[in-house]
């Protein structure tokens, strides 16, 4: 079978159905037996600004996006202006023929600076200032342009009137795109049915639109020259698979892991996780009986959200909250209280661009040092950073178990890249649900914070025994104390958990090495950037490099000994992460004394792509120390 790597962009105005268009395309590709990975980029705006889906589909597993792309499907002029240069040689631009006379430089939603940049760019390459002129220029430069009369076809064949046309344009565009790539109408309709499984009216409308557009596509003689029959091959069945965003994956993981109380305050890109949990308030077994019924509470702020979750945890309920950087800032005091009181509570933190509200809807990996240091004073906590959707799901279960096993707050650190990217995953295998150490009945006076050989004291839930909690230093019963000896012993009991956690953590939870043993160069990375590094490996090796990728998964307590082994084995260590400082590289330096000089960094709010990893690695090999990536709009 031919190895296939299809990359496409579907763009349009926010609120124009671009998210649905992307999901339809992703679903169609996944249902066609392909592996998919799709990024969603959008402004912090409800209607009008540029948003797009960057979709990648392949025979083999993909974990990142890549430029240049095979197709750009544009719902509006801004999408053409933004993405025309992302096309590879022979790549196809698709847009409504009604846009031909529009100017590329009179686009009100575009920021002035971008219009200026675009103007300079168009002037420099002599591409003209209208869509028509740009199309001609693209064709002169080896690209294919497919101007398709979407709106006209919808009006004539589906008999839709405005504003319903707008509701159908996204499906029309996606249908042309998929047909141009070689997919049959039958498969597109299957995807439409599956996407709108719970919405009969939308299903019928979208079926009608896809059908009409597809008929028109066959009639259009100009499409013959496309020669892009990428899709439409028979593929072996892949068994049951799921198509999930990172938010979905974590929600499912939390529910498998026994979550029964989720609290949250609305924030992008975390809130979708709570919606998914709310939508599945009944966990069903194979007979359709409810085996669990978690509740979700929308709190008045993040401070309340973390405190409510802690309250729930004190009653023995598996409790969690989810947030992003600004909300996490507010949760710091609650996390400190949970640390002082040895409360098992899980906080899922989806990083986005900071500081402050920064880039609210864009990607970032700049909260690593913040999360591991959040809260004043010192206390044991666990911070796990997932690098893929599978890990996000598995780690969500794991975080619940670790929280109860060690009676510490656990922070599950993710990023917008994982939260909003959609990908295919295998259904998870169910593992252990560990409730941790419980008190035995009838053992006399209960001491919540009993000091023994094990820093983890047996737990009783509120309602079972007499117990006290306080944010102040406390004795074994939980009462306030300022006695220096008790203070020392209680402090040591809490901090001793870090060693215990490190000792008991399986190596795979600490870090994962991708690539051959006997590597010379080591790319050290974490979070969603890992995917781009792994995807880039074959190409790096084809250049003759002996390179491996080390993904760090446990960032607190930091597995310094385990990480050191890999670092000392490498001749060159290169950090790869989406922040300015190189936070993981700094953390490794702090904990191992090894200074990682070479760093590949990105802080534009966009994902690190596979091609960027390749280019940056070559630059590092060429002698650069710090490579800053800027790709993507």
């Amino acid at each position, binding site marked *: 079978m031919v190895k296939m790597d299809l990359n496409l962009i579907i763009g349009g105005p926010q609120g124009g159905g671009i998210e649905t268009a992307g999901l339809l395309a992703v679903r169609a590709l996944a249902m066609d037996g392909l592996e998919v990975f799709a990024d969603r980029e959008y402004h912090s705006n409800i209607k009008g600004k540029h948003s797009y889906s960057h979709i990648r589909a392949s025979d083999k597993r993909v974990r990142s996006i890549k430029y240049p792309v095979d197709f750009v499907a544009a719902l509006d002029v801004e999408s053409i202006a933004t993405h025309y240069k992302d096309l590879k040689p022979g790549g196809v631009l698709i847009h409504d023929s009604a846009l031909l006379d529009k100017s590329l430089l009179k686009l009100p939603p575009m920021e002035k600076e971008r219009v200026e940049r675009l103007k300079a760019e168009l002037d420099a390459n002599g591409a003209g200032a209208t869509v028509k002129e740009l199309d001609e220029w693209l064709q002169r430069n080896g690209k294919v342009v497919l101007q398709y009369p979407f709106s006209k076809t919808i009006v004539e064949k589906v008999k839709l009137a405005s504003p319903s046309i707008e509701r159908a344009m996204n499906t029309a565009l996606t249908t042309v795109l998929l047909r141009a790539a070689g997919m049959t109408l039958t498969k597109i309709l299957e995807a439409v049915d599956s996407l709108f499984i719970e919405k009969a009216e939308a299903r019928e409308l979208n079926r009608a639109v896809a059908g009409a557009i597809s008929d028109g596509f066959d009639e259009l003689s100009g499409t013959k020259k496309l020669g892009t029959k990428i899709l439409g091959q028979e593929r072996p069945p892949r068994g049951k698979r799921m198509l999930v965003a990172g938010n979905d994956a974590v929600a499912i993981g939390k529910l498998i892991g026994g979550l*029964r109380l989720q609290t949250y305050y609305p924030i992008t890109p975390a809130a979708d996780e709570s919606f998914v949990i709310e939508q599945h308030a009944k966990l069903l077994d194979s007979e359709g009986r409810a085996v669990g019924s978690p*509740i979700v509470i929308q709190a*008045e702020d993040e401070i309340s959200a973390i405190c409510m979750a802690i309250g729930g945890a004190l*009653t023995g309920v598996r409790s969690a909250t989810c947030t992003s950087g600004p909300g996490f800032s507010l949760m710091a005091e609650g996390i400190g209280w949970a640390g002082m009181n040895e409360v098992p509570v899980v906080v899922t933190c989806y990083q986005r661009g900071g500081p402050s509200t920064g880039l609210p809807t864009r990607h970032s990996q700049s909260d690593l040092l913040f999360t591991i240091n959040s809260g004043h004073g010192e206390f044991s906590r666990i911070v796990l950073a997932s690098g893929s959707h599978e890990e996000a799901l598995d780690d969500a279960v794991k975080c619940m178990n670790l929280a109860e096993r060690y009676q510490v707050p656990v922070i599950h650190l993710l990023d917008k890249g994982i939260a909003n990217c959609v990908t295919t995953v295998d259904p998870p295998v169910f593992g252990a649900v560990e409730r941790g150490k419980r008190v035995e009945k009838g053992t006399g006076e209960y001491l919540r914070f009993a000091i023994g050989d094990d820093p983890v004291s047996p737990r009783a839930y509120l309602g079972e025994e007499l117990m006290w909690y306080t944010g102040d230093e406390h004795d074994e019963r939980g009462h306030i104390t300022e006695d220096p000896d008790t203070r020392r012993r209680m402090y040591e009991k809490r901090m001793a958990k870090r060693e215990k956690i490190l000792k008991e953590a399986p190596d795979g939870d600490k870090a994962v090495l991708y690539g051959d043993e006997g590597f010379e160069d080591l790319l050290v990375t974490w979070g969603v950037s890992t995917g781009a590094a792994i995807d880039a490996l074959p190409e790096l090796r084809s250049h003759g490099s002996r390179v491996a990728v080390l993904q760090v998964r446990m960032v607190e307590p930091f597995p310094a000994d385990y990480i050191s082994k890999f670092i000392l084995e490498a001749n060159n260590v290169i950090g790869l992460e989406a922040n300015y400082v190189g936070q993981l590289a700094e953390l490794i330096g702090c904990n191992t004394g090894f200074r990682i000089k070479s760093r590949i960094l990105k802080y534009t709010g966009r994902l690190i792509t596979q091609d960027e990893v390749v280019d940056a690695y070559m630059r590092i090999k060429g002698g650069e120390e710090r490579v800053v990536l800027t790709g993507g709009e």
Partner: protein
Amino acid sequence: MSTDWNSGVWPDWCPGCGNFGIFTALKGALSELGIMRERIVLVSGIGCSGKIPHFVKVPGVHTLHGRAIPFATGIKASNPELKVIVHGGDGDLLGIGMGHLIAMGRRNPDILVVIHNNGVYGLTKGQASPTLQLGRKTKSLALPNINSAVNPILLGIASGYTFLARSYAYDIEHLKACLKQGISHSGAGILEVIQPCPTWNNLVTMDWVEKNTYRLKDWDPVVKDDEDAVKKAQGIIGLESGERKALGTILVDRRKETFGKRIASIYKNYSTEPPAAQRVEVEGKALPIDLEKTFPRFFIQ
């Protein structure tokens, strides 16, 4: 009253502190209500009032400044069998914790909030609290207070509380009766306790309280219907704008659904199996959740 309600921890309040009255009345109320000790949870914030859970022999959760209400809400929502009582000061609940106080009224959980109102921040040495009147200068203040006072009872009405009462820390019998009524009330309650702070507040003294408070008479606090609710609210605004503070039960509205009932109307299993009563594993393994049945839309056919 049985001394069995003492935890054995020495109450470290200043001599003459109003908290001693609240402490005594609380122990009396709990003892007379006959609730199983382990099923009670005292949740407090920060400040002198925040220490009270340590002194009473029932489970206690001494939380963060201003945050007792969210902790209490999480506890109650997870395990509705627990009797949850919040204690906080006027600075704690009406200053840093004001947002949570309002949110609690909107939810109407079955929780009583006891506001220890002494007009100052006691544990940080007497700064002006949100209930100190404009222009007043206690002995600990360098300059007169430049903020107007908030009235917890009026705030309670506006926020949707279904039980409102005011008492006085040294009138143990009256306070005990109010506590019993508030703890037994099904829904969100505020009990404001006027509490002299002999160390920092030289304005609200026992003498002041004698002269500036009165017991409510001929006031029926129970709301009968919507029309009556409006009348009551207007009446309470009248009561609260008087020179002297009314002591007693000011509002009882049993018509509003509690937070627990609201949750149960959405999550049908909640009334029989709240989170704390649900299993999350079978012999150490995850429950047999059928993912395709539970999450159909995430599966690709």
